[in-house]
C-alpha cells in the first residue's frame, strides 16, 4: 500500500506576540496509507486539529515536511492539486455551507475546478446519493438538522472526487442521531469507495471504529496502532488526560482486582463475552 499523506518530523508553532512561541506540533512523523480509516484522538489543545490543517495545506509546517499524494504541501504552485486530493470537513456544519440550496452547495467545488456542467450534475447527484441526502437536494440548508447539514458538507467534499477526506471533529456539535448518521456515512465511503478517511475526534466510541488509532498529546504522537491495542494501554492514556471506553475501563478495573480478563474487548458484544467467560470460570456456588 502507498501512503497518501506522509509527514516527517512535522513541527509547527503559531507566531506569538510575547516572545513565547507555543509549540503546537512537536515532531510528528506519520504515514497514512491509502484506503485506510484512521482516527486521531486527543483532548483539546493536543495539536490534533493543527495536524489536520497541515494535511491539505491550510497551514504550512514551521519545520519538517508534509507530502500529500507525493506533493510537498509547501509547493505553492500545486495547491489546487493538493486540495483536490484531500478534502476537509470541519466541526461547524453551518460555517462550511456556501449556497442556499443543497445541490448548489455540493456543486461548489466542481464549479471551482472548472468541471463541465453536465459532469457537475452527475457528480452532485452521485455525491448526494453517497451521503443519503439526494431527496433533500432542493432544500435550503438552514432548514436541515445538524447531522443532515454535516452530510451535505461531506457531499460537497466528495463531489471533488478526493482520494482522502480529513474530518475535524465532524460530530462535536451533533446529537446522537446525527452522530450515528455521519459516522455511518464516513464508514461507508471508506468501505465502498475506498476513500481514505482521517477522523479527528475526542469521542472514544468513534475512535474505536477505525482501523487505526493515533493518540496525540502535547503535539506528539503518544500511541499508534489498532484501537484494541491502543485502548488496552489504560494507564498511559490516563496519564495524558484521556479516558477509555467504559467497557475497557470495567475490564481494566477487574484486572486490577486480580481477575484474568482480556483488555481488548471493545464492543458491547466482546465485553459481554469476556465477562461471561469470567463468570463461567468462577461459577457461583449454589447453596
Amino acid at each position, binding site marked *: 500500500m502507498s501512503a497518501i499523506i506522509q509527514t516527517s518530523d512535522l513541527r509547527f508553532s503559531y507566531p506569538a506576540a510575547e516572545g513565547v512561541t507555543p509549540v503546537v506540533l512537536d515532531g510528528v512523523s506519520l504515514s497514512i496509507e491509502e484506503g485506510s480509516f484512521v482516527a486521531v484522538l486527543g483532548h483539546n489543545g493536543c495539536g490534533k486539529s493543527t495536524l489536520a490543517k497541515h494535511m491539505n495545506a491550510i497551514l504550512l509546517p514551521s519545520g519538517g515536511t508534509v507530502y500529500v499524494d507525493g506533493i510537498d504541501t509547501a509547493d505553492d504552485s500545486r495547491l489546487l492539486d493538493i486540495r483536490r486530493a484531500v478534502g476537509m470537513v470541519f466541526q461547524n456544519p453551518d460555517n462550511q455551507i456556501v449556497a442556499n440550496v443543497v445541490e448548489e452547495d455540493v456543486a461548489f467545488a466542481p464549479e471551482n475546478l472548472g468541471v463541465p456542467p453536465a459532469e457537475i450534475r452527475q457528480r452532485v447527484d452521485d455525491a448526494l446519493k453517497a451521503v443519503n441526502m439526494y431527496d433533500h437536494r432542493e432544500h435550503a440548508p438552514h432548514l436541515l438538522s445538524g447531522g443532515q447539514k454535516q452530510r451535505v458538507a461531506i457531499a460537497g467534499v466528495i463531489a471533488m472526487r478526493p482520494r482522502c477526506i480529513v474530518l475535524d471533529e465532524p460530530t462535536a456539535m451533533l446529537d446522537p442521531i446525527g452522530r450515528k448518521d455521519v459516522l455511518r456515512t464516513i464508514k461507508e465511503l471508506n468501505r465502498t469507495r475506498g476513500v481514505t478517511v482521517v477522523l479527528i475526534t475526542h469521542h472514544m466510541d468513534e475512535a474505536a471504529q477505525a482501523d487505526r488509532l493515533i493518540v496525540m498529546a502535547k503535539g506528539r504522537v503518544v500511541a499508534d496502532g489498532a484501537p484494541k491495542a491502543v485502548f488496552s494501554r489504560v494507564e498511559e492514556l490516563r496519564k495524558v488526560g484521556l479516558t477509555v471506553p467504559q467497557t475497557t475501563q470495567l475490564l481494566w478495573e477487574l484486572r486490577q482486582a486480580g481477575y484474568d480478563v482480556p483488555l481488548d474487548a471493545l464492543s458491547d458484544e466482546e465485553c459481554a463475552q469476556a465477562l461471561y467467560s469470567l463468570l463461567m470460570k468462577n461459577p457461583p*456456588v449454589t447453596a
Partner: protein
Amino acid sequence: MQPIIETKQLTHTYSAGTPFEHTALDSVDFCAYPGEYLGIIGHTGSGKSTLIQHLNALLRPTSGTVLFQDTDIWSDPKITKRTRFQVGLVFQYPEYQLFEETVYKDISFGPKNMGLDDKEIDRRVRSAAYFVGLRDDHLEKSPFELSGGQKRRVAIAGVIAMEPKVLILDEPTAGLDPEGVESILGNIREYHQAHNATVILVSHSMEEVARSVDRLVAVNDGKIPFQGPPREVFRHGDELEQMGLGVPQLTRVFHRLRAMGVDIDPSVYTLDQAKAAILEKLGKGAV
C-alpha cells in the same frame, strides 16, 4: 414534598395559524423538587428546549400553566421578571453570548439587572467565579482572550451569579473533551450541594446524565414518556433506543449478559455499579 417548579398541562404551538404550525409540547405535566438534581433527556426537536424555556418565562405557554413556588409565573409582570432571576438558564454554547470588556463585568451583568448593590454584586461575581474554577487574575481579562472551555465557565458563572434557586443547563458539556466534561460537571455538582439548589441538566449523553442525577425525565415528541430514577428509566432500553437516545454502554453490556443467561441485574449504568455487580457474583463464586 411541594415541587419548586411545576408545569400543568403545558402546551406550546409554534407559528400557530400558519402552514408551519408545530406543536412542540403537548399537555406536559412536569415538576422539579427543591434541592433535586434532575436530568432531562431527549433528542433534538423532542421539545426539551421548548420545555426549559417555559420554566424561566422566556416562552409563554399556548395553554396550561407554569408554577414557581405555587405561583403562576405569568400572573403578574413583576413575578414574570422575578422568575427569570430565580430560575437561571444556561443555554447551549453559552460562550457565544459573552459581550463585556472584562470577565468580571460579564459575570456581573445578571446581578446588575437584578438591581443589587455594588458590594453584593462583587460578592456574587467572586463566588460564582470560584464555583466554576476561574482565578482572580482571569476576572480582569477580556473574555475573548480565554480558551473555549474557560469562556464557557465565564458564561455559566454569569448565570450562577444570580444565585438562582433552580439552575437549568442545556448541554453544558457539548463539544468539550473528557477532561473539560468532568470539570464542568464537578462545578455544577458543587453548586448544587453548596446552595442546595435544584439543578436541571439537559443532555443527550446518557452516560453523563446517568451518573449525576437523582431522577430522569425523558422527553419525546412533546410528551414525557418516562420519568423516574435512572435505573428505572434505563429499563426501557429499547424504547429509548427508538427515540434516538440509547442507554449507557455498560447497561447495554449487562443486558447482553442477561440475555446470555447470567442472572445479573441489568439496570446498572455506572462503572462502579457494574464493577460491584460483577465482583459480587465472583465473590459468591469464591465462597
